[in-house]
């Protein structure tokens, strides 16, 4: 095949701002390979003029595309590093906590409740891994449900640790109520995730979350006898009022952007 364009020169000119290291070399080789494969593909489709084919491929792999691919490539490397090293860091942290627990145990002969150090470290490690998962999945819209599950899971993992702390060293009998609070926190976490990722129809999340959270508050404080069940009902009404305020706020906000063309009834004369 007669070469009309030096793809290498084209790639080098686009990547001239970037250093000549191994990472970039691999990327440039990859682009070159893609361009060569595309050239063969287009020629196989029946294009007989090789010059046109080369110019077509050059225009396809323009600087905008190559640099955007490069940005994705670099982000991919970063993500891979995170995926590779995060579990290792988590395991190391847990091992260190086990060593600390054993050292305290052997040297000070205290074995309880120092095991909570191991439990706490494991909890933090697992939650960190889950949140890293949420961060990595942020760019994958299709996997939003997985992100929601991870947020809910992290709330539950944290809750069991808080429960253990409240129940064992502090001896709080009604510590089990933290699991009810966790359910409310799961809704709040989901709402925060939806807000941060700019989900559509987020207003519905707000309208559901507010009453649900207030119901849990009502039950928890009711069990703790902060008020009589009847007095607590005010919380339910309060949640409904907040919902109404949210709706009114949204309507007022949207009103700023409403457009009404001058609708004259042109058929009035008839």
């Amino acid at each position, binding site marked *: 095949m007669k070469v009309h364009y030096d793809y290498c020169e084209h790639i080098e000119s686009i990547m001239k701002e970037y250093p000549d290291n191994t990472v970039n070399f691999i990327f440039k080789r990859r682009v070159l390979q893609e361009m060569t494969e595309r050239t063969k*593909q287009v020629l*196989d*489709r*029946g*294009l007989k*003029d090789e010059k046109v084919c080369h110019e*077509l491929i050059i225009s396809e792999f323009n600087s905008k595309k190559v640099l955007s691919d490069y940005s994705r490539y670099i982000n991919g490397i970063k993500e891979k590093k995170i995926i590779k090293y995060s579990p290792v860091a988590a395991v190391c942290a847990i091992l260190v906590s086990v060593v600390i627990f054993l050292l305290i145990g052997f040297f000070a002969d205290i074995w309880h409740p120092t095991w909570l150090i191991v439990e706490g470290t494991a909890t933090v490690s697992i939650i960190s891994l889950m949140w890293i998962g949420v961060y990595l999945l942020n760019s994958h819209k299709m996997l939003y449900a997985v992100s929601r599950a991870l947020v809910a899971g992290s709330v539950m993992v944290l809750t069991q640790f808080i429960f253990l702390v409240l129940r064992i060293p502090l001896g709080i009998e009604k510590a089990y109520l933290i699991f009810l609070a966790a359910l409310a926190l799961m809704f709040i976490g989901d709402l925060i995730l939806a807000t941060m990722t700019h989900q559509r129809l987020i207003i519905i999340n707000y309208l559901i979350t507010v009453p649900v959270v207030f119901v849990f508050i009502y039950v928890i404080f009711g069990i703790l006898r902060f008020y009589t069940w009847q007095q607590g009902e005010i919380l339910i009404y309060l949640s409904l009022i907040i919902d109404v305020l949210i709706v009114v706020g949204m309507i007022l906000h949207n009103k700023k*952007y409403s457009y009404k063309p001058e609708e004259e009834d042109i058929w009035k004369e*008839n």
Partner: protein
Amino acid sequence: MERKLNAELWDKMHYLFRDFNDRMVHVELHYDFPIDIEILKTVLICFLEKAPVLHSSFVDTKLRAYWRVNDYNIDDVLHVSTPDKLDEAINEFLTQYIPPENELQIQVAVFNKKDGGSVLCIVENHMCMDGGDLKYFMKTLCRSYNEYAENRISPIDLKSGSRAYDEVYSDFSKTEKKMAQNLYKNVCAKDDHRFPLTQDNIRDRSFIARRKIDSERFATLRKSGKAIGATVNDMLVAAYFYSLYELAGFDKSESVTISCAIDLRRHMKDTSETGITNQTAFMQCNIPELGEDIFKTLEYTKKSIEKFKNDKFMGLYGLPLLKLGYSIMPQAASEQVIKLGYSNPLIAMSNIGVLESDKLALSGHAPVDGFMTGAVKYKPYVLLSATSINGELTLSMCVRGNEEDEKIVNRFFDLMEKNLAVLSSKNS
């Protein structure tokens, strides 16, 4: 690895229209010289590479929809022949149907005439691009053909940006964009008046009926329009209304609506950064009654069209609602929900406009004749397309029907001719 493209809002909407029409857009251009097939092949390959949607299959998994890019050979796209019966061959080619699942969404044919001329015909899926972008595609194709033929300039100029519907907002200010994105209005055609075609029949076939208004009569019509302050479009719609009342025998006091296609690119200053796509909506042009004569009908028509022209967000009303429907539900569910609120217009018109013969010239030969038309509609839906070339106006209607329907459509064209002549008479 399988390459996928996003199925954009309008792609999905046109897919939804599968019960109403065959979604094909047609072009026919006659030249008085033989087109160089090798040059055309080169240009077409480059264009298909620039617009991969044209060699993709539409995949509907019920959960989501997308385009799967396919491999192809140019010989599967471009067909060259020298038919004995030219008209029959053209008609057969133009009335073909390309299923969305097909590996290619465009078919091109060159029919060589025995007198040395040739006919370039193109059929493409409306899901890929509308009449507006097909016109751009044709003009770029001809320009690239010429540049390549004369100076060996590579034909790589076809625009290849985003096909997303929201490109239509790209030239709005931030506030205007928010306003436009808040136009949650269900736009649907509510009129039950029908074009008087026969009942559906399994033996029905697709046909393209067309009628030419010669350059002399068209020039008189334009002149008359200037005199009475009406555009060609106003007069075509008015004649359409008047002919319909006459043909279908609607009561003169009844209000009738015709949906007219509007090019949403009117909201965009520059479309060179977008890809080939659909940016067409409909406006409901309505008259309260027929009026005592066609000039009164024209007055009603102008008033109705004027109302839309004065609207800053003309044609953008249903978009946010459609977008919402398609983004919060799986494909199958969103189709069902949208179908509940959507009613396809029974009577529609698309004024595709002028086919500039100088821009469609190949190797210095301007097309001697030609036209462009919309999809073959399934009864009872009809769409009247209007294009002009070399000063001649072509009215066309693509219908899946029988011989009786063809007669009805031709009778309608007779009435159109008569009524356009009445409108032209104002001048003389």
